[in-house]
């Protein structure tokens, strides 16, 4: 059974549809890139998957042992965070909040998990550093470490590389790819970067006026895909 199945999903705000006929499945180990224009509803779709937004119609089913609160989420950056006094350690540890339920304090295992993920994201030595004083790439790695504390199965990444310089972007993609290939974590990533999407993804979901869902190769043969390969140069794909 698939980890996530979406059937005839309709999303919208205040009775106004922004997306309809959304059908796709995500299986364990997939690397799904969600592409589409700004404002087409990519973030909204992610919020619906996380239960932060109620679909107007349709169904989202979780399977394969995945529970909704076991998803690791990396949100689009919000303004509040920019001047928030918080250390790297505090933020990563807050990824364990789903595990500890109503228990007021984090236990040893959770602290160890946080330390492991800080290490994994190459942030060792930064534990006590202030989040707002880190570079953009470091900040994203902190949030990725936090997401990893919340899941062992599925990551939802909302534009994880926006605002990063090319070099750091490449590093970030490599890191995500490593998590997908080596640790077997399913990845769903919103991205504007078609080239990267085609390089790493196993599946593509294109939303907007022209919907597409399928594997990377099917996408390249599809009409939407042909349009993009023309735009961005087919040789790279």
């Amino acid at each position, binding site marked *: 059974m698939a980890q996530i199945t979406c059937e005839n999903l309709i999303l919208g705000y205040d009775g106004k549809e922004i997306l309809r006929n959304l059908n796709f499945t995500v299986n364990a180990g997939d690397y799904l890139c969600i592409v589409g224009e700004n404002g087409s509803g990519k973030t909204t779709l992610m919020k619906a998957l996380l239960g932060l937004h109620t679909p107007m119609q349709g169904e989202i089913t979780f399977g394969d042992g995945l529970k909704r609160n076991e998803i690791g*989420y990396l*949100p689009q950056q*919000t303004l509040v965070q920019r001047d*928030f006094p918080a250390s790297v350690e*505090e933020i990563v540890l807050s990824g364990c*909040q*789903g595990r500890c339920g109503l228990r*007021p304090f984090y236990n040893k295992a959770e602290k160890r998990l946080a330390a492991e993920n800080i290490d994994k994201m190459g942030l060792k030595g930064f534990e006590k*550093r202030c989040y707002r*004083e880190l570079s953009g790439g470091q900040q994203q790695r902190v949030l990725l470490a936090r997401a990893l504390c919340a899941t062992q199965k599925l990551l939802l990444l909302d534009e994880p590389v926006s605002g990063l310089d090319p070099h750091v972007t490449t590093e970030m993609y490599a890191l995500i790819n490593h998590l997908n290939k080596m640790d077997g974590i399913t990845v769903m990533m919103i991205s504007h970067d078609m080239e990267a999407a085609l390089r790493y993804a196993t599946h593509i979901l294109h939303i907007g006026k022209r919907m597409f869902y399928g594997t990377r190769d099917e996408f390249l043969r599809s009409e939407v895909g042909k349009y993009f390969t023309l735009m961005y140069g087919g040789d790279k794909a």
Partner: protein
Amino acid sequence: MMYILSQYLQFPFVQYAVIVGVLIALCSSLLGVTLVLKRFSFIGDGLSHVAFGAIAIASALNLTNETPFVMVVTVLSAILLLRTGQNAKIKGDASIAMLSVGSLAIGYLLMNLFSTSTNLSGDVCSTLFGSTSILTLTKGEVWLCGIMSLFVVAVFILFYNKIFAVTFDESFAKSAGTNANAYNLLIAVIIAVIIVLAMNLVGSLLISALVIFPALSAMRVFKSFKSVTICSAVLSVICALIGLLIAIVAGTPVGSTIVAVDILAFALFTVIGIMK
């Protein structure tokens, strides 16, 4: 100076004032960071005006013990404000402004209509800016304040990690299954309790200062949520003590003196923050 102080500290009413002052300063500083960062500072301001209105109603009704009544009204308003803020038909800010200005007007009107006091403007002024009422506390009031403070501190410590999570990133907290709405409600209720407590000390107009200044000062210098929280609690208590003692000895208004000390501390911390 020290001699005069030790003389004053022998009086029970001064002791009460110091105990209550310290407790209130401690409580009010705890949620400062959350308030500032969640853009909730307006709610604090709005609620303090509601509390003013509630006091006016209480005195119009000739209630002998105002605090419980004011507490209930303020907590309910906090819940209401948060609700309207969330599913905003009227924008959050606007509804807060409506409620706060409305309560001020109605409160003053009621005080005018029903006041038996000969010194009306004095009464109004002391409700707004804090009075010497901190120096006329009864033992019962000290106990009430003690219990409520204990409640606030206990809730804050127990939910410290959740409050951090919800303040830092509400979307993520929700996605991890944390009931962010419930915690927002909890935060609003605690704020309401703190405001009612703090009215005794600094009056309704100056409460926001008591809540926000220590947090802003601490944020200039410290980098983690924990250190900011601890620093603002300590700073708030120290400022309140200094302010209170100055006010007692020099006869200045208690609330404004404490806030003035808070402002001085803020300036000091800003300088330290720049030099670091």
